Structure formats: structure tokens, C-alpha cells
């Protein structure tokens, strides 16, 4: 009986807020893009350039899917850049020194990455050391492991053996233009949809939010906090491994020194997209938009002929601005 009058009111408040939350970063992306359409040369607004932006976003984007989950849970993972490098090295090593096919090599790279994510998760939950410190340590450990496997050098792979690995992020050839986007970008899109659904509709996803929002409460209510956390870091590692696969596809060598500092771009993407380092907040759509904003700035600045340092200053300013706007919005609603 009392349900009836309740429902419309519930609908209204719910929609308004979630609409504002998701639309904010999207508006920012459109604004940034619009500015560059105006000031950059005509080549900026072409379909070809859009494809390029999508390709360039993919590595950060894939890694950011896992990071979004970690940040929602109230944690952080600084080892992502190193894991990307490790993944490229493992893939190259498998291709070069064992007879495996590309798929097995790719799975091997991702599995190695997930393994290190698992280690991070175990250390965080078992030793009760804060994620910042554990993953800071892991950042060095993994980087070292990558260098060890590669004996401090890049691992070259016979181009014959690469096959589809080479094409993940390559610009589409004419005869396959029906795909619209390179396969790597599709992988990102499909994974993103999957992760968004996981966060929204599964116990794991909702428990991740609950832990980030109030860990004690989650524990009190029977959420297996430790298990969820281990899983979250393992997944973050796996996504970093996948980002490594993309990276390998672009480089076609295993490079233990690649992606230094990438974790900061990844974290920036999450934060621009509305993720809160305090936990409990963040969304996949926001994260992707955040990653896109950074690529659009980079692409626009390049085409406009701005030097690298301008790009960096603009990106830095956007990060701070995004979080400041977020804070403002919160002060008003709470």
C-alpha cells in the first residue's frame, strides 16, 4: 500500500544524482574535445584521428579497469606499470624460448601478471600493511623480476611467430575496415562492459563498494573482506597483464623498461572519472572517459604542435581540477 507513493519519489532522486555523476566526466570530455576541434588543425576531427585516440587509450584503459576496482575498494596499486612490463617480457620469452603458440604466450603473460596481483593482495590482507606500501614494494619487485627474465635487455621475437599478436592495436587495413576499430579496442570495450556489470550486479562488485565505503561495517555484515580484497588485487594484476599484452602488440618486443610511471596515468584516469581515493566511489564509464580525456589532450596538443611539456602541464591541471570539482559537488550534496 505504502509502496505506491514511494516509488516515483525514489525514482526521481535516484535518477537525478546518478545522471549528474556519470554525465559530469562525459561533459568534460566533450568540452576538451570541442576545444581542440576549434583550435587544432582539421586533421584532428577526422575519423582516422578518433581511431588513433582509441588505440592510444587502450593500454591505459585496460589497466584502469582493474585499478577502478582497487580504488573503489579503498586501496591503490602502484605496481601496474611494472606488471605491464613484466607481461611483455613473459610473452616475448615464451614466444622466443618455447614453442608455444601466441595465444598460450598471451595467457602466460596475463597469468604471470595475475600472480603478482595475488601476491599483493595476500600481503595486504595477511600482513595488514597498507596497499600503498605493499604495492610500492611490488612495483620494484616486479620490475626487477622483469629485468631478470630479460637479463636486463629487450627480448626480440621472430616476426614470423607473432601473427595476430601484432595486429591487436595496429591501424585497421582496408580489407578489414568492417571491424570499425582494431581488435584491441574491442577487447577493451567488451571488458569494460563486463566490468561495469560485475561492479553493478554481482556480490563481488557490491562488496567491493561496501568495503571501500566502510570496511568495519562490511566485515560486521559478513562480507569476506580479505577474500574480496585478494580477488580485487588479483584482477587488477590480470588487467595490467592484459594491458601488457596490448603494449607488447605495439612494441613486438619484450621490454622490461617500458611503462615506467604508467600506474600514475592509470590512477589519474580513475580519479578524473570520479573515483575517490577514499574508496566507495568510482565507475567504469567514468574511468574510460578519464583515460580518453588524457589521450585527447595529448593528441590535440601534438597536432597543434605544442611541445610535450605543455601537454604535461595541461594534463596535470585537469587532474587537480577534476578532483576539485568532485569535492565541490560532494560538499553540496552531503
Amino acid at each position, binding site marked *: 500500500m*505504502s*509502496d505506491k*507513493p*514511494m*516509488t516515483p*519519489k*525514489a*525514482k526521481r*532522486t*535516484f535518477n537525478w*544524482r546518478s545522471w549528474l555523476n556519470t554525465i559530469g566526466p562525459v561533459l568534460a570530455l566533450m568540452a576538451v574535445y570541442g576545444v581542440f576541434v576549434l583550435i587544432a588543425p582539421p586533421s584532428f576531427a577526422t575519423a582516422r584521428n578518433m581511431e588513433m585516440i582509441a588505440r592510444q587509450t587502450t593500454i591505459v584503459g585496460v589497466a584502469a579497469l582493474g585499478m577502478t576496482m582497487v580504488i573503489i575498494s579503498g586501496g591503490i596499486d602502484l605496481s601496474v606499470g611494472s606488471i605491464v612490463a613484466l607481461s611483455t617480457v613473459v610473452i616475448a620469452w615464451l614466444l622466443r624460448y618455447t614453442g608455444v603458440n601466441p595465444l598460450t604466450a598471451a595467457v602466460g603473460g596475463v597469468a604471470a601478471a595475475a600472480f603478482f596481483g595475488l601476491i599483493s593482495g595476500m600481503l595486504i590482507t595477511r600482513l595488514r600493511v597498507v596497499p600503498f606500501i605493499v604495492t610500492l614494494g611490488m612495483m620494484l619487485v616486479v620490475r626487477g623480476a622483469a629485468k631478470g627474465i630479460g637479463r636486463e635487455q629487450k627480448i626480440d621475437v621472430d616476426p614470423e611467430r607473432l601473427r595476430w599478436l601484432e595486429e591487436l592495436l595496429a591501424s585497421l587495413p582496408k580489407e578489414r575496415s568492417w571491424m570499425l576499430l582494431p581488435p584491441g579496442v574491442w577487447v577493451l570495450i567488451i571488458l569494460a562492459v563486463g566490468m561495469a556489470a560485475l561492479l553493478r*550486479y*554481482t*556480490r*563481488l562488485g*557490491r*562488496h567491493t*563498494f*561496501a568495503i*571501500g*565505503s*566502510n570496511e*568495519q*561495517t*562490511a*566485515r*560486521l*555484515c*559478513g*562480507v569476506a573482506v580479505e577474500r574480496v580484497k585478494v580477488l580485487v588485487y588479483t584482477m587488477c594484476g590480470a588487467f595490467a597483464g592484459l594491458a601488457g599484452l596490448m603494449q607488447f602488440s605495439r612494441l613486438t618486443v619484450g621490454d622490461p623498461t617500458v611503462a615506467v610511471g604508467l600506474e600514475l596515468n592509470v590512477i589519474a584516469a580513475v580519479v578524473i572519472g570520479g573515483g575517490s581515493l577514499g574508496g*566507495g*566511489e568510482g565507475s567504469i564509464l567514468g574511468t574510460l572517459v578519464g583515460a580518453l580525456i588524457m589521450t585527447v589532450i595529448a593528441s590535440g596538443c601534438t597536432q597543434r604542435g605544442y611541445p610535450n611539456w605543455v601537454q604535461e602541464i595541461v594534463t596535470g591541471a585537469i587532474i587537480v581540477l577534476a578532483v576539485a570539482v568532485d569535492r565541490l559537488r560532494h560538499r553540496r*550534496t*552531503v
Partner: protein
Amino acid sequence: MAERVDSDQSSIRLQMRDVCKRFGATVALEDVSIEVAAGQVLALVGENGAGKSTLMKVCSGAVKADSGRMWLDGTPYRPSNPLEARRAGVAMIYQELSLTPHLNVQENIMLGMEPATLGVVRWKQVRQRAIEAIKEFDNPELTPDTRVSNLSVGSQQLVEIARALAIGCRVLVLDEPTSSLTQQDVERLFEIIGRLKQQGKAIVYISHFIEEVKRVADRVTVLRDGRAVGNSDVDDITIDEIVALMVGRQVEELYPRSGRQPGEVILEIEDLAGAEKPKSASLELHRGEVLGIAGLVGAGRTELLRSLFGLEPVRRGRIRLGVYTGPASPVRRWMQGAGLLSEDRKEEGLAVSLSVADNVTLSKLKGFGPLGLVLPSRQDKATRRWLERLDIRCLGPRQSVSSLSGGNQQKVALARLLQHDVDVLLLDEPTRGIDVAAKALVYKLINALATGSPTEGRKPKAVLMVSSYLPELMGVCDRVAVMCRGRLGPTHRIDEVNEHSLMLEATGQEVSA
């Protein structure tokens, strides 16, 4: 109802027998026994530190008793953590609500027990069960999709109760549930407690508002210093008798009061308004007096002190402190001779990882060495004086504050104001969470400060004190004003008011003149 309880032993739902608990050297509980029947409300009353919360933490699995036994519906009950207790059907609603603010109402209610297929939550069922649980409350603010951070405190509490109901709890423990509620919410809560009673839940109600206890409870158990000192049907005991049991000593000697001589007005505010609270506050504080501010939690008392001290913005109004007018930053306020004792000792009042000496001297690191140097030996020397005078129990000035007891920590925080030698002391809940002995010392100290000592050349100070504990305000203050919903009422002489009239004013009811 009373006959059913007495005649039918099998209806005893929760029984705790001879529970003992020590924390280090302090005895928190000593041979405490209680029992609650199904469909009964047992009130647990006692002063702060009497052991109410510890007892209930034992019952809800958060604390393990050293000895003693418990039964739930006749079967032995031994929870090793809160989760186990909840699964057994004992849910505790803490004073600080434990909700996940970022999630919505239905998610909070069903947290940790979401029905799911292969990990995918069955949202329809979640919604249904959540609506089932909140339906009873009949509160328009409570809808399944509302984010919990957007709810009022009263409604948030209902979400917690709904969660307890959704797991099918048999015993519901409410720890000071009304301390931060509006009068309306309190009424609503009482109504809900009545309904839960009818459904046969056993309810343990912790409170130090005795009038509430008389209204809502069937039986009452009084705790004092970790012992159960009384147990009775609510109808067979008067409020005065309960108070006597709670206090168990002469109240007079707890609150010394020497001949204070109010002097000139040293702090004057007129129509002060902050960002949200206070909405309007005016008062005059004289040298040599203690002015108390009563009111409910959330009425804006803390905000008043904080905006006076420059920790929160001042939107409107006039402030005069001594010869200085207008708002000022905390740095300025210290220089002008005012000091604030924060209600949040651990987070704000003290740098707990630093030493006692560092904390005492933090606000004025001057005069501890030549050329502006801060010599530890001189800090220690200055601090030792206060260790002695305030009877601060510690190994020495270099011991870290975090290892002190709550009472000693509070004395350290107070010592800072004394070391700084401020003229106006803004004290926010100065006795929160400290034991009776430490309280007595704080009261003695406040009295000594307000009186001054002409022989030792100490001028009387002015004290503005916020407290939620009315007996304390009645005992310590010369005058008292009540804050209600952000507005500070007129100042009354202490002999013109009583606890009852203050409470009425605090809850926004008209005081009959």
C-alpha cells in the same frame, strides 16, 4: 507482561551470568548478570564508564569476557566475533552508526547476505526483502534506492534496525539510540520499539536518559563501576532511586564550588551565525565564571565553539574577545588568550603519537631556549609542573600520549591550555569518556580556574563549557544556556533551572515560564 516474564522461565531469551572483564589493570565488569525475556525491553543504565557498553560488546561478540556464561533461548551462546553473534540472532546497533554511506538503503540492509545466482545478485529479491524490512517504519524518507549518506541520522538508524530485522534477529541491542536524534525521531523510534516488542523480540536498551528508560523499558538494570547494583521492574522504581543507584555517592563533593566572583565581560558574542550552525547565538561570558551550554548532540554547540575559535567560518554576527573584535584564526585566538579543548581528543585534541611534553607545549613553543630554539629539557621542565598539579599518571614527559588512559590524555589536553595560560577556556565535552576520578579532578580544576587565587597572583579565568551531561553542567556552572537546532537560548542562572527544564528546552519544547 510482567507476570509472563516472572512465571515462564522458558521465555528468557538472553541470559548472561557472572560476566567478568578486565582491561589491563582496570576492572570493566565484575560478576554481572542480566536476563531479558522475549517481548521485553531491558534498560541498562549507568554513568559513562559503568560498563554498559562493555557488557553489550561481550553480548554481541565484539569483546571476549574473561569469565562468565551466556545462554540464548536456553542454549549456550558463545560468539567469538560480531558476525557470529549476528548469525545467532543478536544484533547490536552502535552509537556510531555502522553503515556504508556510499551504498543505498536496500544494499545496506542486505549487505553480506545478498541472494545471488552464480555471484549475480538477484536485485528483485533484495528490493523485496528491503521493502519488507522498512515497511514497518512507515518513513517517507526511507526508500530502497536512497543513498544512505543522504538520509538524516534518525533514518540512518532505522536502516541499521532494518538490517537487524532482515537477518531475523532475536535480540536487538540499542546503544544510546536517542543521543543524536530529534524529538520527533525519538518518538518514532519508541513506537518502533513497541512494535518489535509485540513481535516478540528481546530488546536491550542502553541509555543514560532516565526519563526515556521509564517510558520505554519493562525492566531496568543499573550498573556502577562494572557491577550490577540494581535490578527491578521499571514500575517499581522511581527516577530518584535509579539516580541514587547510578551515582552511589554524594553528588555534592564531586562538584566543588568556591566563592567565585564574576568580573568584567571578557567574551561577548551577538547574533553569531556560522556556515550552517549555529544559526544564531548571543552570550556574555564574565571573567571568573563558568558558563555552560547544554543541548542535544548535533544542536550546533560544538560548531559554536569552533566558529568562535576560527575553526569554522563565521557568516554573521559580532564577536568580542577582550579588546579584540571580529572573527579570527586559531593562531590569533591563542595569541588573544583563548584556548579550545576539542571534543575529539584522539583525532583533533592531541597528537597522540607525540610525547606528553610535545603535546602540552605545542600551542606555544616559546621561551624554551635562546634564539627561538626549543630545548627538550626545558619543555620537560615546564611539563613536569602540570604532571604533578593535574596528577597525570605517566612515566614522564617523554612518554607518548597514545599509551595513556583516556582520563590522563584529557588532562594532558587541558594542561596545554594551562601551560599557554589562556584567559578564556572553551571546553567541548571536557569529561567525555573519562573515569569518575578523572572527572572529579577536571571539575576541581575548572572550579580553581574560575575562582583564581589572589595569593598566588592568579587571576580568575572564564570558562565556556559544552556538555551533554546535564548533572555535570548543573554541578559545575554558574550560568547555563541551551542550544536547540542551531539557536542559543537565553542564559539562565543555575539556581533558576533544573535538569528537567534544560532537557525540555534542549528538545525544543516550550518552557513554561
